[in-house]
């Protein structure tokens, strides 16, 4: 069964703390993505990874970094979290890029106080 998993599902952090969001997929997909979703703004692309150690900035990369050391895992790191990074974060994967279907995880709700 094709699946994208995200951990944790809910997270509360204080401003200035570091945050690590983890994503896994069992489909051997080359491409993985991190998005954030805010009310009225839709899904905004933070980073895209084309394979291990091959990452590219999306539309809103400031304040975030990523790590992909294994094809099936993709991490999003917030160094010194800010209150405006409170959001729902979604990870997705696809076989390739462009028109390929993206499979999304269930999301991580992050609250930065």
């Amino acid at each position, binding site marked *: 069964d094709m699946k*994208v998993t995200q951990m944790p599902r809910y997270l509360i952090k204080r401003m200035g703390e570091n945050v690590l969001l983890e994503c896994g997929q069992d489909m051997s997909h080359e*491409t993985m993505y991190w998005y954030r979703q805010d009310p*009225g*703004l*839709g*899904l905004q*692309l933070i980073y*895209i990874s*084309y394979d291990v150690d091959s990452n*590219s900035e*999306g*539309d809103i990369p400031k304040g975030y970094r990523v790590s992909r050391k294994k094809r099936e895992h993709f991490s999003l790191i917030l160094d010194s979290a800010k209150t405006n990074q409170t959001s729902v974060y*979604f990870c*997705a994967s696809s076989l390739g*890029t*462009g*028109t390929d*279907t*993206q*499979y*999304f*995880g*269930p*999301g991580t709700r992050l609250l930065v106080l």
Partner: protein
Amino acid sequence: SQLAEENSWALSVHEGESVTVNCSYKTSITALQWYRQKSGKGPAQLILIRSNEREKRNGRLRATLDTSSQSSSLSITATRCEDTAVYFCATSSAGNKLTFGIGTRVLVRP
């Protein structure tokens, strides 16, 4: 950058009725996808329609694409309560990214 946007913020129908969600975009595209997101879940793809296609069906779903007016529609017939969700259109161009609209909330009432 390209922009995909749905044309209504929210729609409400009774179970069994049909509903149509519209989407417009601003640049040339290679394909347009429709996604559905239920409460507390991640988006899931419903239909992919390529720029050389005019219509695509998937069960009770029908998507159209008009590249001359840069618009698309997603119609759901015989709606059910479980169709209640946010529906997004997402466009892809020659690059590697999908651009998502902000979504249309569809409420199907019993």
